[in-house]
């Protein structure tokens, strides 16, 4: 198991550490639901150094990535970030990721558990393109500050960027704790105002400590992956292995904003398969709310008019909504928000209602 450069900090903070995507990561430092609420009301600090960071250079980098990725890389303007997926020829996702195109590179942030598969896929399709693929995961730490107080806190450690003017899904370079040229992006996996910092590994602990010190007056605290999962579910954001995987495509997952069928993008791996799915979707991803005592859980059946017609993809108690929430795949014609449904928990039925996603968002304000 690998340790991030912040491992000693997690131990010091008394985290419960678990294996996640090949890394020993903090699942929680305290009660998970309290960590969720702290991010919604104040701010939280996350170690995301397990996420895969891949740098693509070479003159064909944009054409190459437009062949492999679902979104239209050539159209992403300077300083902007877009969501995209790697899909197989059958349209099924290998991973989902964020794309940061820059003047001399394209920087990708992928899931920890899929980093090796992604790199293998990228190298397998490299032939004929002038590109260099560089795994930067071990060179950079990734630290996120998320929550309504995140701007005030991050301003204390970032110089040279006007954070108030950095829009959602934009990035810039600034000086972080005295380190020049640090990539800072207004991104996150929480539905909150928030920032992600890509700092050199050897400075990770210093940046971590300085953010905690700067945020003390705003009640910042380190937040584990357990709360992060609930935050992303409340924000309606997909998690590979739940809403998307080798049998759950991005179209029916409601992720078409990350898929471009523009003619200028040309052919790309998975395009024709996803066009066919888009023409005739059979299921859709819906939000599920339940006032019953049980949270929806991945794999539970979902029934409409008594008959099981779908399955839960994710679920959790939601402290923000004060109810149990989840996502589920159901037939397109049965998934209208407001539809009364039931969750099947090993044969026991619990009343639920379908609703639109996301359950919560503050990001675009």
């Amino acid at each position, binding site marked *: 198991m690998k340790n991030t450069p912040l491992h000693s900090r997690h131990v010091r903070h008394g985290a419960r550490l678990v294996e996640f995507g090949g890394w020993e990561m903090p699942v*929680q430092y305290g*009660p998970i639901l309290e960590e969720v609420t702290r991010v919604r009301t104040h701010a939280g600090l996350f170690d995301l150094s397990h996420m895969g960071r891949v740098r693509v250079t070479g003159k064909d980098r944009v054409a190459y990535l437009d062949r492999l990725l679902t979104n239209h890389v050539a159209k992403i303007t300077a300083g902007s970030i877009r969501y995209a997926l790697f899909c197989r020829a059958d349209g099924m996702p290998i991973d989902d990721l964020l794309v940061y195109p820059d003047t001399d590179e394209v920087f990708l942030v992928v899931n920890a558990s899929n980093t090796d598969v992604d790199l293998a896929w990228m190298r397998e399709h490299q032939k004929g393109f002038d590109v260099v693929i560089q795994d930067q995961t071990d060179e950079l730490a990734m630290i996120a500050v998320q929550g309504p107080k995140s701007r005030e806190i991050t301003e204390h450690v970032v110089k040279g960027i006007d954070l108030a003017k950095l829009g959602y899904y934009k990035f810039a370079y600034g000086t972080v704790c005295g380190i020049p040229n640090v990539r800072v992006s207004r991104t996150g996996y929480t539905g909150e105002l928030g920032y992600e910092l890509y700092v050199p590994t050897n400075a990770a602990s210093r940046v971590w400590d300085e953010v905690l010190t700067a945020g003390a007056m705003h009640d910042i605290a380190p937040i584990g992956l357990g709360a992060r*999962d609930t935050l992303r579910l409340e924000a309606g954001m997909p998690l590979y292995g739940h809403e998307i995987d080798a049998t759950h495509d991005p179209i029916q997952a409601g992720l078409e904003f990350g898929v471009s069928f523009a003619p200028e993008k040309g052919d790309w791996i998975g395009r024709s398969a996803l066009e066919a799915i888009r023409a005739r979707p059979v299921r859709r991803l819906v939000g599920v709310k339940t006032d019953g005592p*049980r*949270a929806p859980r991945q794999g539970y059946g979902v029934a409409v008019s008594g008959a099981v017609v779908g399955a839960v993809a994710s679920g959790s*108690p939601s402290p923000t909504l004060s109810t149990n929430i989840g996502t589920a795949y159901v037939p397109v014609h049965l998934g209208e928000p407001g539809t009364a449904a039931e969750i099947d928990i*090993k044969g026991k039925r619990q009343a639920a209602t379908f609703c639109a996603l996301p359950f919560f968002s503050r990001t675009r304000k």
Partner: protein
Amino acid sequence: MSQKSATRSARPDDRRYTESHEWVKVDGETVLIGITDFAINELCNGNEGDLVYCDLPESGRALDQGETFGEIESVKAVSDLYTPVAGEVVETNTAIEDHLEILSKDPWNQGWLVRIRPNSKELPKMMDAAAYERFLAEKKH
């Protein structure tokens, strides 16, 4: 594991234990079944607020040895509850359903889950407290 788990006291030696972390205590003609502090800590890591639900059976239900009689749920996981003893459920600890913190505060007494009238006076072979301690110690390696 966190420091919280390092300071627990020894398990009571008035009962038997299973490898799936249930305990069984004979109480007259019936037995009480609960789950150990280790099991509870695995679910909530000392954060009792992370326990969100406990599903217990109706009285009168007949259970086979090893059968699932309920579920306990934390924010991130659901675990089955197994009975190591075949018999009939005669009582359930309904106080648990609304006060899950009982499980982390007092798993050995107030934290019992079900009372079962065993089908046989001969209980299956289970670990005593010392053997369970050894089992947990080996599990860590």
